[in-house]
């Protein structure tokens, strides 16, 4: 049996579910297209229970939480945290502020520190540079302010100042938002969420990490070439196929 069986059918997505029962059997000889699953034609909303759907709809109806000007500032801060580089786009280009806006409705506890932090930025901008809008400052001026709030205490038990806590929360949300976006997943190099036949780490990885002499363990593991043969055992539980 070809080990590449079934993979294309699985990539077609949910519409092909009925076909999958045969597909996961042994027909198609197709090549895996790792990591590039087709768009799911069935919307995410269908996976929600009625009360979950209502809750999400309420949030969407109340969005945006942040004003247009706050959104612009958040976009800028997101890009300060995760700027564009050779490997990936700037965070703002991946929808992180919309995600953060949704999360402030989903977790109302985020509202106060994020709003308070944005106001703190205005005050800092006025005090240091005579402008009460962080967005009109030069990049150098913006970073001079951010440098004062960008680092957490060395001791994890110590509580940071509110403006440091604000930036830390924002940094977390931007980081999560970016690396769970389509572009961020690609940047990170996540290869999963795609049908495959797991056969252990690649040889070069095993060598690099000094994983050797484990034949006894490996000999017990699945040989995918036999996976379609119906399992049969002797009376003592020894697998015969």
């Amino acid at each position, binding site marked *: 049996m070809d080990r590449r069986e079934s993979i294309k059918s699985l990539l077609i997505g949910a519409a092909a579910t009925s076909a999958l029962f045969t597909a996961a059997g042994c027909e198609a000889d197709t090549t895996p297209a790792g990591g590039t699953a087709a768009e799911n034609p069935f919307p995410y909303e269908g996976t929600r229970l009625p009360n979950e759907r209502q809750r999400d709809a309420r949030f969407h109806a109340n969005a945006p939480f942040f004003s247009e000007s706050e959104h612009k500032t958040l976009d800028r801060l997101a890009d300060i945290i995760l700027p564009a580089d050779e490997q990936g786009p700037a965070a703002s280009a991946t929808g992180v502020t919309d995600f953060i806006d949704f999360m402030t409705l989903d977790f109302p506890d985020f509202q106060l520190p994020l709003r308070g932090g944005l106001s703190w930025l205005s005050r800092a901008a006025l005090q240091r540079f005579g402008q009460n809008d962080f967005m009109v400052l030069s990049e150098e001026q913006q970073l001079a302010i951010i440098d004062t709030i960008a680092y957490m205490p060395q001791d994890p038990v110590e509580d940071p100042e509110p403006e440091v806590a604000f930036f830390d929360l924002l940094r977390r949300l931007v980081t999560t938002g970016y690396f*769970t976006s389509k572009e961020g997943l690609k940047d990170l190099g996540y290869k999963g969420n795609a049908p495959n036949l797991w*056969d252990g780490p690649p040889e070069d990885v095993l060598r690099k990490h000094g994983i050797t002499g484990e034949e006894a363990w490996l000999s017990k593991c699945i040989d995918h070439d036999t996976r379609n043969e*119906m399992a049969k055992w002797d009376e003592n539980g020894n697998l015969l196929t």
Partner: protein
Amino acid sequence: MEIKKPTKTYDAVIVGSGAGGGMTAKVLAEQGLSVAIVEAGPYFDPADPVTKTQMRWPYESPRRGAGSHRDFGDFNMAWGGWDIEGEPYTQAEGTDFRWFRSRMLGGRTNHWGRISLRFGPDDFRRKDIDGLGANWPVSYEDLKPYYDKVDKLIGVFGTNEGLPNDPDGFFLPPPKPRLHEWYYIKGARKAGVTVIPSRMSMLTKRISKERGLCFYCGQCGRSCMVYADFSSGSCLIFPAQKAGGQIDLFVNCMARSVETGPDGKAKAVSYVNKADRREYQIKGKVIVLAASACSTARILLNSKEGGLGNSSGLIGRYLHDSTGSSMYGFLPDLMDRKRYNEDGVGGMHVYSPWWGDNKKLDFPRGYHIEVWGGQSMPRYGHGFNQAYVQRALGITPGGYGKKYKEELRRIYGAFVGMSGRGESVAQYDNHCDIDPNKVDEWGIPVLRFHYKWTEHERRQAGHMQDTFEEVLTNMGAKILSSKKTAEQDYGLNKPGQIIHEVGTARMGDDPMESVTNSYGRLHEVPNLFITDAATFPSQADKNPTWTIMALAWRTSDHIISELKKMNL
């Protein structure tokens, strides 16, 4: 809306459609009995593309899969959770028990970890060994034929290791370890901790033409659309229906009580149909409760003043969940990893069964260790612990910009964690009863929990923390979750959080010391049976599902045999 009304008397009415209810329905229907299943949640088929969460990307969820509404996150396939709107439970003072319910066909089997462990010979006679709790009225030898049948029917990968209290079985070959699991293997060996391939119910190899094979997406918690993992719907109920079994599903029907006749026999199950909020009764010659340990206790306690079949006073008593404690760290050796798909099966490929000798330790029961980590799919929370990683690496915590972005790439996939899942000692005082002052939205009196861990569990959790620290250190990991102290109960999870609650109607030979006999048959109600984990006198350091199914199969055979003998 059309309301399905029960019209006939069924040979068997089963409450609950999870591991116990599904297995009972399958075995009875295959023997030609007419079966009704009463399930509190809606119909669910993992293959339904509309509700399917498997293979979805984090960005499909507006909260990127956060668990702010659905426990374990948006993609987890449990319709319910620790808190369900309209279906509350209460706590006695000083108790914080967490009760997880999954309201859907198949119940919690749709999302569970598929860790499929047989109890061992010692697990059935713990009182003989340490004087605590109660022995089972059955032995491993009694259950072994049923474990064997469950292995072959459902499919479980693993290896025969000849361990004394972790019996061999009929296994499919396991998947190879992931990279961090190889590190774990080395670290565990060095600490003298046994480590073997996992035993889990995903199909690495074909056992039937009806079910697909694992394609290693690592998402069993979302329930498998090709039926490559075990769930009660895909592996028990649907196949039994396809084979011509008469199984009528009464979904969205919340059982309230068991009705008895003047002869003391069970006659019917009363339930509320959630669609029209009206009360119905469904008649059965045999009634089987498989609603989950606490729901089964609740139904019995609500069936009659003082509880149905409760002369022993033990319904609701001896409630116990597995212990849990965890630690995780960061492996500098795994920085800058080569990227490849290592989703694997949903969960660990290697684990540690209990290796210790409790006679030499200051706590009576053991635990197993589960391992996690690697290049898993990012979801809500990804990167949240970066400050801890930075501190461990001697970098000033925080920061921003290209340097920070690069750090995040470099550490991806370098985390590893360990969780202990241990056996607690069943206590008479740990129990659930009916709160006299509260009902749920269906008008059914709710459960009130009374639960306190003892020194047995705390000391065991302390041993877990010591072991995790040693193994993680052996692996070269920097520990990120600080070691939990005695003041923190060694990180012991709240009772109920491990979702292995058992014991509320324990089995035994003495009717004053138990609620059912070894077949789950109530001592006082001859045609009323229990096939969920309510009957477990003790927990074992193993997940309960495999034993639930072995017992349910044995009980179902017994029901058939008793029906033939006209004893029911």
